[in-house]
């Protein structure tokens, strides 16, 4: 066992920049959904809010490729239009969470001492509230709107990002070149920007992808509970909720949005797992 391990560590795959075909496929799916998120409403065959079929929970047909929903609206159009909410809100939230987490993490690592302890304790307390529960309580208190959703998701996932960035930054912080920079009197801002940041960027980006998956899942969960994107707009989680009534007779309207979420999240996971090692983890 140990033998095979050391052999693996020397193979070119471990050393180099090789990208696997699976990773390329995953990247294609992600790009596809990203494009749909931008142009979705324009390529939809029917207006997403319009009742186009007298039958509800219709099966797959030539006219309605993904069936119709509980009111007889075209599912394909609704999924295409919903991509904008799921991808857009998640992307905004992950940007906020990771920017805040990484900046705080690097600051804590560079300054150390009391600042470090204070930031860590507060964020630990935040992360000891189960995420869905936090979402429920806040949405119950101030109601659901897109800015509130983005803020809640960002707050919930900041501590994880902070802990990850801080652990990396602490290691970089002990390097000689950081000590040298400190000795020649550079300010904290410079140390963070020019010495720490470039050296943790790869793993931080990979971590951001993982966090994006968590955020998509939580947003879908909240929408599924009726606390996310409010009607008449609908993200993929809301689409599942709306059509839950069709589940007991296996309507495609329940499964299609769920599968849309699954393709997105699984692709992001696959892409990260198949990233070149150089990007994913510089310490290896």
């Amino acid at each position, binding site marked *: 066992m140990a033998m095979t391990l050391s052999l693996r560590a020397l193979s070119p795959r471990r050393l180099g920049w090789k990208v696997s075909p699976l990773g390329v496929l995953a990247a294609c799916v992600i790009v596809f959904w990203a494009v749909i998120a931008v142009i979705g409403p324009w390529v939809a065959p029917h207006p997403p809010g319009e009742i186009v079929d007298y039958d509800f929970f219709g099966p797959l047909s030539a006219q309605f490729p993904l069936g119709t929903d509980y009111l007889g609206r075209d599912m394909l159009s609704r999924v295409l239009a919903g991509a904008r909410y799921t991808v857009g809100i998640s992307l905004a939230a992950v940007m906020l969470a990771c920017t805040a987490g990484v900046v705080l993490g690097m600051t804590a690592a560079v300054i150390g001492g009391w600042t470090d302890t204070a930031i860590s304790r507060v964020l630990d307390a935040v992360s000891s509230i189960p995420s869905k529960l936090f979402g429920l309580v806040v949405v119950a208190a101030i109601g659901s709107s897109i800015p509130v959703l983005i803020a809640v998701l960002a707050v919930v996932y900041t501590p994880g990002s902070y802990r990850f960035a801080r652990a990396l930054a602490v290691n970089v912080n002990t390097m000689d070149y950081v000590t040298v920079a400190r000795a020649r009197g550079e300010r904290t801002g410079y140390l963070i920007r020019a010495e720490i940041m470039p050296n943790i960027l790869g793993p931080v980006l990979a971590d951001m992808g993982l966090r994006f998956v968590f955020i998509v899942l939580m947003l879908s969960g909240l929408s599924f509970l009726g606390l996310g994107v409010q009607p008449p707009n609908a993200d993929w989680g809301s689409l*599942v909720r709306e059509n839950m009534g069709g589940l007991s007779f296996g309507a495609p309207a329940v499964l299609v949005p*769920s599968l849309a979420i*699954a393709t997105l999240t699984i692709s992001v996971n696959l892409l990260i797992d198949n990233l070149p090692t150089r990007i994913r983890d510089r310490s290896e």
Partner: protein
Amino acid sequence: MNPQVLTLILGRIGVAVVTLLIVSLIVFAATEMLPGDVVQILLGQAATPEAVAGLREAMNLDQPAFLRFLGWLGGLAQGDLGHSYANRMAVAELIGGRLVNTLKLAALTAAFSVPVALMLGIVTAIWRGSLFDRLVSSVVVAVISVPEFLVATLAVLIFAVWLGWLPALSFGGDTSSIWAVLRAYAMPVITLSFVVSAQMIRMTRAAVIETLKSPYVEMALLKGASRARIVLRHALPNAIGPIVNAMALSLSYLLGGVIIVETIFNYPGIAKLMVDAVATRDLPLIQGCAMIFCLGYLLLITIADVVAILANPRLRQ
């Protein structure tokens, strides 16, 4: 147990208590942010200035928020969770029976998923890279990266719609036979087990693989010990700490999963109670449920940490 370890564990429990205090402050503050006046909403049409002032005083809403927080905290410590806005019943009473239902669901899920996940986690770690390992790991990654409701939806489609073995979404009170009870619990338990097991298999596998990398395992390999002996005698005893840690952490995923699963299957547990309370904005009820959830979560995380301290001498510095 030596005093140093005891101090560490007491310290960890102290941190948990402080965290619980901070969490209660956050929960209280979040529910304080409600725009609009609770009293106005409660009285509705009958909101004359006198009635509003009277009810406000009766509900102690005329006191500053900090005093109300202390009062609420004091009540919590004595098991008094206040009264529901919706029907004036004691929150503790409303929660009681529902909590038992949820604990039943959680216990059944744990009893079912812990042995299965342990076995799969260890086996996949031993036969790392084999077809079986790759198969299990792919399923695990798939389950982890999809929402809980997709797992539930697929379970309903497979077991209720296509195979017709189990009832779909109804959770009736039919307790006429053990079989009926089992059938009623099957769907939520299957869904939750999938979600929790996936986390558990992943963490267990990682813990065992980590141990298999250690020098003493290499030594055992070099001296010619059999594979079974290496795993059972050398690796497993050292992996038990991380594995129990992983178990406790994965069980905390139950808390998130249970919210979705109880909603889908209409299961009369505490999570469903809370989701309904959110719909009616019943703040005392939401606060009570939220505190119970946080307590359970902290309990599991603290157990995980304490086990890690006990199992790994290097964490004792």
